[in-house]
């Protein structure tokens, strides 16, 4: 009896000690990755507390396939070097005045694009991407809903975006597009009269620049006729996390990463955008370097 009481007492003291120190020991014992790295949790979903080692799905065949693919890409890059820049003869690079960067001519062209909506932050908009008639254009369609659901968590809603995937070279290294020979963006599209925003992302270095985008407006006409849109790169302005920056500078075209189209006009209802191709061209008549004022803040008087 005395022994049982002593054991109980010891256990109680031990439990109390653990409970008292758990608040201080917890961060040391089980590190909360979300607290450190600020992981985003989609509203309505529980936080993912699975440790990283449990998420590994090891497959030897996949590994071999990956190695073969990447070494093949590396070999192609080495061979391309003997041909010229980006695997084309230099004379082609010197003489080209237009370049079709993306065109939608088959199912594989849709693999290069990502569609996302405000569903990721808890909204109710929908967007889908498919090939148009005769596999000659892509159609982005869906429904925009700018009213956030009443779940107590979601604050904002009402956007959808189509963005090109980051190009990757061998071993998943980022590959950027060099548009420095061109000065105008040329898109052939057919919209529904809604205003869209074109976003171009360039390669950045600092972490505070990761949300930097260069934007310009795209007003679609709607109707049965295709629309040719020519936007000089000098018109693109800098924004970060959706906010236009005071300190503006022109877009440097030698390291472009992605291009995207965003709809966020706060008009609920269906939308549709067809894109035939996205190209760049060199308009010799356009000599403007940058359309916006670059001023010095706090000038000395």
């Amino acid at each position, binding site marked *: 009896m005395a022994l049982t009481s002593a054991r109980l007492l010891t256990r109680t003291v031990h439990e109390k000690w653990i409970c008292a120190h758990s608040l201080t020991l917890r961060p040391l014992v089980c590190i909360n990755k979300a607290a450190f790295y600020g992981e985003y949790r989609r509203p309505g979903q529980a936080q993912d507390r699975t440790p990283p080692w449990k998420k590994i799905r090891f497959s030897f065949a996949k590994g071999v396939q990956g190695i073969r693919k990447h070494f093949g890409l590396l070999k192609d890059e080495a061979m391309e070097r003997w041909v*010229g820049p980006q695997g084309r003869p230099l004379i082609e690079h010197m003489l080209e005045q237009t370049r079709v960067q993306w065109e939608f001519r088959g199912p594989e062209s849709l693999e290069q694009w990502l569609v996302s909506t405000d569903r990721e932050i808890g909204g109710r908009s929908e967007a889908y991407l498919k090939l148009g008639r005769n596999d000659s254009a892509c159609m982005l369609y869906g429904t925009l809903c700018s009213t956030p659901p009443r779940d107590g968590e979601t604050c904002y809603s009402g956007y959808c975006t189509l963005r090109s995937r980051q190009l990757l070279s061998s071993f998943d290294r980022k590959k950027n597009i060099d548009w420095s*020979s061109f000065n105008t963006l040329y898109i052939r599209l057919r919209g529904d009269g809604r205003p869209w925003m074109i976003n171009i992302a360039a390669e950045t270095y*600092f972490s505070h620049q990761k949300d930097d985008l260069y934007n310009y407006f795209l007003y679609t006409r709607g109707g049965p006729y295709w629309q040719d849109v020519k936007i000089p790169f000098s018109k693109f302005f800098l924004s970060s996390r959706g906010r236009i920056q005071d300190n503006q500078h022109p877009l440097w075209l030698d390291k472009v990463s992605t291009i995207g189209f965003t709809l966020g006009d706060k008009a609920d209802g269906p939308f549709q955008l067809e894109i035939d191709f996205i190209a760049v061209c060199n308009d010799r008549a356009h000599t403007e370097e940058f359309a916006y004022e670059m001023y010095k803040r706090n000038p000395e008087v």
Partner: protein
Amino acid sequence: WILAWMGLEINTMAIIPLMAQQHHPRATEATTKYFLTQATAAAMILFASTMNAWTMGDWNINQISHPLATTTVTLALALKIGLAPMHFWLPEVLQGLNLTTGLVLSTWQKLAPFALILQISQNTNPALLTTLGVTSALVGGWGGLNQTQLRKLLAYSSIAHLGWMIIILQFMPALTLLNLTIYITMTSTMFLSLKIMASTKINSLALAWPKTPTLTTLIMLSLLSLGGLPPLTGFMPKWLILQELAKQDLPITATIMAMSALLSLFFYLR
């Protein structure tokens, strides 16, 4: 060594505001990368010189004799000037700058590290110097092959020329000095010509012929001189270096250097 290190640090600090004056994120990126590499190299120099002073009891620049200290300071100076395999920062940094600052970076900023390299030339590891030189010449030729941006092209040209300078350092430092002088002259010509034409891409050079034929001819001759084509001035240091390498019974090294010069000449001619 302490005063030399201080001089190098002041040199780096002085050019940082010049590089960042453009107020563009790419210029800031270039400045940051430059500062990080130069500070690392300066710290390595300080570490090596302190190690040499601790073991050998000597602070003199040309009395550095501890093998580890000598190797470390050679690698640090190679990082300073952008010798392969410590060259990765140079094309990106030059690309982010305007042509005037790029000129200063390619010419003036090489003088201080070379002054130290020349002083320690007798104590450096010959195999290390040969490796650095051959690697730089090959990387400079290979890297510049498909460049369409002129600043990156000149960066790879710089790496290749530095390789030529370093390879002959152990046999005849006077040739290194000659090569450096001629390189500075030719590179200054190139940068100033490109600045007058305000061109940073190969395409704009192609269109320059009807606008400024004299300047275009000058640029062409400068490029051929950089490539080492006789009878232009740039041929002389390369010829003398190859001659000296042959005299020192290094035919394979001389052949590799000549082949890499052909690579460089290929992209200059284009």
